[in-house]
């Protein structure tokens, strides 16, 4: 049996199902991220594990014990709240020390552990300050230190790094991962930053409108999104609507606005409407006149390690990403050929409700 188990957890607010039938098993020592758009029920799920929101139905088990209706102060979890929830009348030191005091840790040891935790989040010089004298990112790190200092069996983190700059965020991600490896803390982290979810999680749980749509390893979520929503929400993607023209054994021929493309048949039937998903970094830009599609560079964006191109062609605008190898990028307006390896194409059955706006997808 898993360490932390949610079974058919539902939370209803009036007529709104904030969380519906969430079932999730987390192994001991595992790092799981809840990823999803704003308002999809991530915080509500976490709060039900923490015991601050009562589940309308379903059950939660922790280490074999049913905690669905257990009091929050008997669960022994370390929590970072989305709003930080620091004690405003206590110094940073006292904030971090509070949990240890509640555990009746002796004073001398308490000081050592608080100092260590504050060092971990790079806040040692701020021990004597009050929360209102700190910046947003500093407050967030106090909240993190306060949760990890008690070495809880389960850490619940609600967007614990959302207010940090890129460098600090990366450093904190490694710290979190490190703590979790060393101490074996089971961690459930809420985030809407997919890069963060991918870089430190063992598994990612994608949520949409109160439901779990996919639970998988980061790599598989990215490469094999089970729904079109996920392929749009996770990373950037090119969505190409088409129709299956013919099935030839294991291969299917799909017509994309009249241009035939070969893909794996995988249960498709002739005449079916499908959407092909191709990640921008899987597109190759080659010499004009070659490849599967003709195109013209419409825009280019410098992303540091990569170039992002918008390519106008017969299927509308495609996004393509190429590594920045130091050579000069393509100029806007030049004609190119677009090619891809057939194995990188993911197929979703059915047609898109509406064509996605590539500028929105870039978020």
């Amino acid at each position, binding site marked *: 049996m898993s360490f932390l188990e949610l079974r058919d957890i539902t939370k209803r607010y009036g007529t709104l199902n904030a969380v519906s039938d969430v079932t999730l098993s987390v192994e001991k020592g595992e790092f799981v991220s809840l990823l999803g758009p704003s308002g999809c029920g991530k915080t509500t799920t976490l709060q039900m594990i923490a015991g601050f929101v009562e589940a309308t139905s379903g059950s939660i088990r922790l280490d074999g014990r049913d905690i669905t209706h257990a009091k929050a102060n008997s669960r022994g979890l370390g929590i970072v709240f989305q709003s930080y929830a620091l004690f405003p009348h206590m110094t940073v030191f006292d904030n971090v020390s509070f949990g240890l005091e509640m555990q009746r840790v002796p004073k001398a040891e308490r000081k050592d552990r608080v100092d260590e935790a504050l060092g971990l989040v790079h806040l040692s010089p701020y021990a004597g300050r*009050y929360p209102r004298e700190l910046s947003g990112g500093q407050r967030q790190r106090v909240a993190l230190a306060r949760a990890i200092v008690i070495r809880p069996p389960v850490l619940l983190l609600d967007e614990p790094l959302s207010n940090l700059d890129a460098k600090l965020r990366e450093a904190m991600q490694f710290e979190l991962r490190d703590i979790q490896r060393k101490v074996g803390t089971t961690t459930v982290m809420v985030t809407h930053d997919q890069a963060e979810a991918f870089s430190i999680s063992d598994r990612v749980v994608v949520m949409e409108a109160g439901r779990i749509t996919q639970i998988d390893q980061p790599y598989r979520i990215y490469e094999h999104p089970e729904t079109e929503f996920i392929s749009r929400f996770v990373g950037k993607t090119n969505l190409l609507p088409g129709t299956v023209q013919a099935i030839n054994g294991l291969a299917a021929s799909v017509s994309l606005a009249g241009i035939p493309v070969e893909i794996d048949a995988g249960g498709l039937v002739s005449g079916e409407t499908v959407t092909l998903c191709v990640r921008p970094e899987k597109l190759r830009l080659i010499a004009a006149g070659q490849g599967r599609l003709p195109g013209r560079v419409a825009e280019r964006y410098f992303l540091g390690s990569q170039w992002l191109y918008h390519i106008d062609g017969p299927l509308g605008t495609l996004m393509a990403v190429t590594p920045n190898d130091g050579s000069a990028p393509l100029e806007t307006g030049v004609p190119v050929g677009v090619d891809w390896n057939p194995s990188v194409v993911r197929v979703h059955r059915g047609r898109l409700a509406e064509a996605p706006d590539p500028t929105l997808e870039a978020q």
Partner: protein
Amino acid sequence: MSAAAPRFPTPLILSAPAALLFAALILTPLVLTALLSFNEFEHATGRTHGFTLDHYLAVLTDSYYLEIFLRTFRVAALATAICVVIGVPEAYILSRMGNPWRSVFLLVVLAPLLVSVVVRAFGWSMLLGPEGPINAALMALGFGRMRLLYSEGTVIVALVHVMLPFMVIPVWTSLQKLDPAVEQAALSFGASRGTAILRVVAPQILPGILSGSLIVFGLSASAFAIPGLLGGRRLKMVATIVYDQYLSDLNWPMGAAVAVLLLAANLIVMLTYHRVVEGHYRRRLG
């Protein structure tokens, strides 16, 4: 807007009516009272004139007056303490109630404000009087009749009843401003509910408790109707002797001196209290 401000003193003009009202209705009588307290008083004719410190000396050296001052502040302090003990948990419970009940109970807490103090004082004296229901119940239970009226305890109970809303309202207001997640955070670290309230909630609502106790103390120390009606002739408080000096002895300068001393003592007690309590939280809560 800001360029025009120096030429056209809008703030001054806008605050002038309130300032005039304040000066006319509060400062003028206060100054007149203070001046009056230094006048000599002729018992034979009732005329007041000249300058003397006799009244102040008389009050400050007479143990009769000192006892009344002490009693007044003791009663006010006790009433304040009881208001804190009852009012703060009451406000906390109110703030945690679900919606239909919260409104109902808030109304119950505030309802006494809608009834005149005098009416309420008479209510208490009927309830506690020799023929009142309390005594009737005591008799029925075999305890015999007790003298409940005209005691310090009765005055304190009645003051608490009158003053409780003035404690509940500011505490309730500061509770409204708290982030509930902060208390949840305390619980998540394994704090019991009691510890969470004492260590995390109470310090944050200290400003509300402070202003509530200042209001209650100030109003109690200068209360007139409650001690006048429930303390009777026997149990004098400062406000009631001011009344006696003015209306029974017709010694207005003496009454004025007592009133000025009450005001001064009240101010000193409240400022000291404010300093002590505020010193504790100023740095923390800003």
